[in-house]
């Protein structure tokens, strides 16, 4: 399963869920797979994707919120897992696209290429609903579980790097305004 496959599979399961997506390749591939106003593309603030999604989930308990994070990025902000567990928003799903590398900056290995285990980290911080998936079928099952069992959920999707083919517009304020108007 490539990162694009995982992103495409995840976004096909969504209806009106807002999505916060990590900067770089993850944002590029979500845009290529299917742009929509409810995608919040980050262009900086590496590490904060899950935190932005947490704030959104707390402000909007009526909406299911999805974060598409990366392994290198989540490793910058592991405390976020503790805060997510402590706040325990039932409406939050964090999908970690774990390719074991800093894909956007040239493919340097991250610690998850070795023994670092982000699902174990989430559990250690108190997140109870977690999964690690290695192919599309497993990801589909985990996503289905996340729709029926209240979260917060952390799904670690082990993926291969893929080559993005498009980029979202470099218009941060436009992305935000469009997102907030669609969220209502």
């Amino acid at each position, binding site marked *: 399963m490539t990162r694009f496959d995982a992103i495409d599979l995840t976004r096909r399961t969504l209806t009106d869920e807002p999505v916060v997506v990590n900067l770089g390749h993850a944002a590029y591939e979500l845009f290529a797979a299917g742009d929509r106003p409810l995608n919040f593309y980050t262009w900086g*603030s590496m590490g904060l994707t899950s935190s932005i999604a947490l704030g959104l989930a707390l402000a909007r308990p009526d909406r299911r919120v999805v974060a598409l994070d990366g392994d290198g990025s989540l490793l910058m902000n592991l405390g*976020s897992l503790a805060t997510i567990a402590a706040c325990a928003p039932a409406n939050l799903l964090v999908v970690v696209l774990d390719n074991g590398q800093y894909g956007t900056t040239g493919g340097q290995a991250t610690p998850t290429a070795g023994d670092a285990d982000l699902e174990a980290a989430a559990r250690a911080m108190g997140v109870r609903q977690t999964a690690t998936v290695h192919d599309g079928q497993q990801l589909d099952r985990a996503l289905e579980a996340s729709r029926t069992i209240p979260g917060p959920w952390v799904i670690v999707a082990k993926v291969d790097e893929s080559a993005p083919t498009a980029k979202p517009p470099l218009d941060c304020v436009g992305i*935000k305004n469009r997102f907030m108007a669609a969220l209502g």
Partner: protein
Amino acid sequence: MRQIDNHSGSDFRGPAIPRWAAGVSDGLWDGGCRQVVYVPDNPLSHILAAFERDHPLMRATLATREEEAVGIAAGLYLGGANPVLLMQSSGLGNTLNAVGSLLVAFQIPVVMVISMRGDPGEWNSAQVPMGRAVRPVLDALGVSHLSVDRDDEARDVVVSLAQLAFGTRLPVACLLPRRLTVPAGGGRS
């Protein structure tokens, strides 16, 4: 009642709440803020106590690090809230890329209430370099800031900053100097 229950208010039932802290709390409430994200310190705990006493509907979320708190606050804003960050000036140093590439770049307004270290009244030399950097760093990022210098102006300073933030969609900072927050000769962080 707080909806977000990862912070126990019972820590803050204690001595009288200083006037400046009640003023900051009132200013944030009157400025339309209902969501606070914080990394604690001693002066800020007075503001949290004032929320408990005077504005119990204010929702407070504890973050593990100030940069993380910026992300949570940004998400709260995207979801329709007018968010507040409470942090020490040392913690501002932990937020800088997030303030620039998320709050300023996306025009996401947040009121940052920053209790100062390293300014007059400081006793710890390790706190001085970041304390001295606070205003130049905020200026470099384009974040407007104002300090509360007297007990009786706290509410009005905070209301005016909240108006600037949420009216013009920019992050702003309210600085709380040690001369305001720490009794003369006091040494608590």
